[in-house]
């Protein structure tokens, strides 16, 4: 092997190592698709619940009234509320990152997030 070849091999090897290290550093962030249900009232995040299989029921008291939210391993839903329109309940169970159910009268927002945030799109127009 010539001297130049050795330098080449060294540089290529170092480059490959650094790239591998970079990928490893990034790895866990990408692979963990841990989803959470987030309950926001009046702009404040009140609860972040990991969707990990254990069903839970949470009663949220807002200044305007209450909402009961049920979460399980795959999604979340508003199952009961004393708001005048009940549209938060009609929105049903949500499972995909980026989806949400809103109770406008109570200023309550329930949404599913993953590590990246909102799933595959930046937002959705409706």
């Amino acid at each position, binding site marked *: 092997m010539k001297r130049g070849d050795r330098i080449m091999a060294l540089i290529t090897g170092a480059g490959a190592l650094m790239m591998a290290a970079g990928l490893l550093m990034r790895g866990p962030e990408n692979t963990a698709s841990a989803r959470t249900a987030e309950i926001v009232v009046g702009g404040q995040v009140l609860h972040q619940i990991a969707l990990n299989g254990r069903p839970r029921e949470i009663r949220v008291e807002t200044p305007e009234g209450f909402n009961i939210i049920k979460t399980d391993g795959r999604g979340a839903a508003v199952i009961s509320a004393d708001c005048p329109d009940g549209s938060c309940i009609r929105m049903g169970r949500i499972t995909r990152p*980026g989806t949400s159910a809103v109770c406008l009268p109570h200023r309550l927002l329930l949404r599913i997030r993953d590590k990246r945030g909102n799933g595959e799109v930046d937002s*959705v127009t409706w």
Partner: protein
Amino acid sequence: MSTEGRSFKKTAAAALICAVVVFLCLNRLLPDKKAEEARGDYFFLGTVVHISVYGQGKDFLSEELAGLEAEGKRLEKLFSANIPESDVRRASDGQGKWVEVSEETYALVKRAVDLSEDTDGAFDPALGRITKLWKIGSDGARVPEEEEIRAALRCCGCKDIELKEDDGAYFIKVTGGALIDLGGIAKGRVADIMVKKLADDGIKSALIDLGGNLAVTGERPGGGKWRLGIQTPERPRGEYFGTVSVSDCSVVTSGAYERYLEKDGVRWHHIFDPSTGRPTDSDFSSVTVIDRDSTKADALSTALFVMGRDGADGYLKEHKDIAAVFLLKGEKRVLVTEAARSVFTAADASLSVGDIGGAGK
């Protein structure tokens, strides 16, 4: 020169290329290069608002968020028909009298009247009597009697709105019992004003969501175009049938599925046909307009929904620059304008995609 010298040059060149590649890879991979994010969720403009801003410096970004929230709430106090002291309410309540308003309200009402004329009344900012009669989406929503609708319709239309500028002061006069309702255009205007503020403050990447009316500044924080979904009707909010890829743009949707009153198995939605005073019996489930000008996109999405397929086709043939996506009611079919072809992608393989507003006048 010896062979060894030449080979050294080659090696040096290879080393340089390697170094550049490694540098570029690291640049992409290292997290500290990423733009920081500040996010806020709010309730104003009668809806849910999300804002995300990206850049350097958490404090600066948080301040920007607070500024946008304050600006949005200030504008709502001018434009809302539901706030008794708003410019819009004072002008409507002042029946027959010139009422002084802010320059912002004057400019928006003027724009609304222009867009109403441009769409032959399909968009109508003086439909307040009708929206107040039905109250769809709020307490006391009901299906009025035909007689009430006819009486309310007589008090609608832009002929009843007059505008005047006098020595730097701005005035609006409303007559004939009409009520101004900017519900179909105000969110667009607020988005435009927020986008301008972001640019003035040096923010290069941001996403504004005013109850589903989207506006984006620049490109995504990581670079590249923003990917924005279009809501699938009757599915949880956030599920989409297609996406548009844009930068520095606004995307606004009008849909019959959003706010409605259900009575005896019939759904009465909130997009009224100014010619009948009733919820529009449209060919579309939803209409999405993609335009830099969010005020225009907001009013046009409503107008095109009201026009229906034939009306919209005719209008679009005269306005070839408009990018719009139409979801047909009860069919798995989407119509897109020529200008929207390059930005729209169907996300649902069972959707068929056709044209609207194409070929000749």
